[in-house]
């Protein structure tokens, strides 16, 4: 189906892009369109103006900055991230995730920023970015604000981004421990996914801090606080029994939507399996001390 007619603008600066959204009734930023155009074709989203951000320089940059943070421009495609040497070296789990998003055509044009801003619960990147403690940089009429990935997606298809705020950058600390991501899926989108990132205390050979996020089964990525608490301060070899001891309690605390991807018990079960497999991978990567 065709989308309804709209106006089209190609600003060359962030300021012009923001102004263009303000000037319109319900204008929207546009890049890959892999989610937005679909929704417009199905007529569940209507906009009177698309503001194409592909002509704004600098939004597709990937770099390790002086603060040892990895910066990924919001307009980077999944394909670009999957093959980027910085990401490959420091966060191979993110490379693999981006190499497996949807299909080859979506990865060619779909962007990490668009994925986040759509707030689709059955998505890969938000879960891992939350586990990586990513911050998102939003630039709007009232200036720049930085929000945590954990706070960005409010609910299904709903984020805290204002319509005139452009997501420009995803930033997260360069990991100093194993980062793992797994998903289970029937079609193109994950039914359940689990991401885990450990910060290691190199001197003691222990886990200083663990971040565990479960996504897709509820309306937004959720932390598994009980597991995180159980992992803090542990040696790597103590991980598996520690997770198993609290797993049922942790999974029971998750908000789960029953949908065509499965019932609540089934999804909780999947989350547990994926978490334990992530742990096995992290244990192997963590040196087994």
């Amino acid at each position: 189906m065709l989308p309804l007619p709209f106006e089209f603008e190609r600003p060359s600066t962030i300021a012009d892009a923001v102004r263009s959204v303000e000037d319109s009734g319900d204008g929207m930023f546009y890049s890959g369109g892999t989610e937005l155009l679909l929704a417009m074709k199905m007529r569940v989203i209507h906009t009177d103006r698309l503001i194409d951000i592909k002509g704004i320089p600098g939004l597709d940059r990937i770099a390790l900055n002086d603060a040892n943070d990895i910066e990924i421009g919001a307009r980077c495609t999944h394909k670009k991230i999957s093959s980027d040497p910085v990401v490959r070296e420091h966060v191979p789990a993110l490379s693999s995730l981006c190499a497996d998003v949807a299909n080859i055509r979506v990865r060619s044009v779909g962007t990490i920023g668009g994925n986040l801003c759509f707030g689709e619960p059955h998505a890969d990147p938000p879960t891992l970015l939350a586990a990586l403690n990513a911050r998102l940089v939003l630039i709007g009429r009232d200036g720049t604000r930085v929000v945590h990935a954990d706070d960005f997606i409010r609910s299904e298809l709903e984020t805290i981004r204002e319509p005139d705020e452009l997501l420009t950058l995803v930033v997260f600390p360069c990991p100093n421990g194993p980062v793992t991501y797994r998903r289970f899926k029937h079609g193109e989108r994950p039914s359940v996914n689990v991401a885990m990132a450990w910060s290691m205390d190199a001197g003691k050979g222990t886990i200083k801090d663990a971040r565990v996020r479960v996504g897709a089964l509820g309306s937004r990525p959720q932390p598994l606080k009980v597991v995180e608490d159980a992992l803090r301060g542990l040696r790597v070899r103590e991980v598996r029994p520690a997770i198993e001891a609290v797993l049922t309690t942790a999974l029971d605390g998750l908000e789960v939507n029953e949908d065509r991807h499965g019932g609540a018990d089934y999804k909780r079960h999947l989350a547990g399996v994926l978490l334990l497999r992530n742990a096995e991978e992290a244990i192997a990567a963590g040196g087994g001390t």
Partner: protein
Amino acid sequence: MTRVLPISFSLNGLVIAVDVPVHTLLLDLIRDRLGLKGTKRSCDMEVCGACTVLLDGEPISSCTTLAVDVDQREVTTIEGVTPPNGLSRIQKAFVLHGGLQCGFCTPGFIMAVTALLKATPHPTDEEIRHYLHGNLCRCTGYTKIFEAVRSLAAEQVSEDVA
């Protein structure tokens, strides 16, 4: 404000200049205005791959691409990879291995395989499966398509060795 834009792009090596309403989809421009019917509309939601064309050599879903986004770029369709007389080596491999029945998904597969072999001339079995995961075929059960592509990878290797 702009609702119609002039665009100019290369379509199978031929420069095309047209004015398009900005909400025009690339698939409709190619099929309905430019008359190239090889590219198919099927799922209309970027899942099946029947509408695959190459944009600057990369596979995209033309059903969910705005025509204005190909301005100043190169689009290749199934017509652009088919020799004037006969079939390309990829198309021949599909025929030889029985990699098609009804043929509706075939143009999309051929385009995807074209891009795959350009990027990775000797793909492994796993690379073939991963790359083609997003192209659906309801006839063949995929095995014959897979065998066709694998024969091309192997054939190229033996040519290189020779």
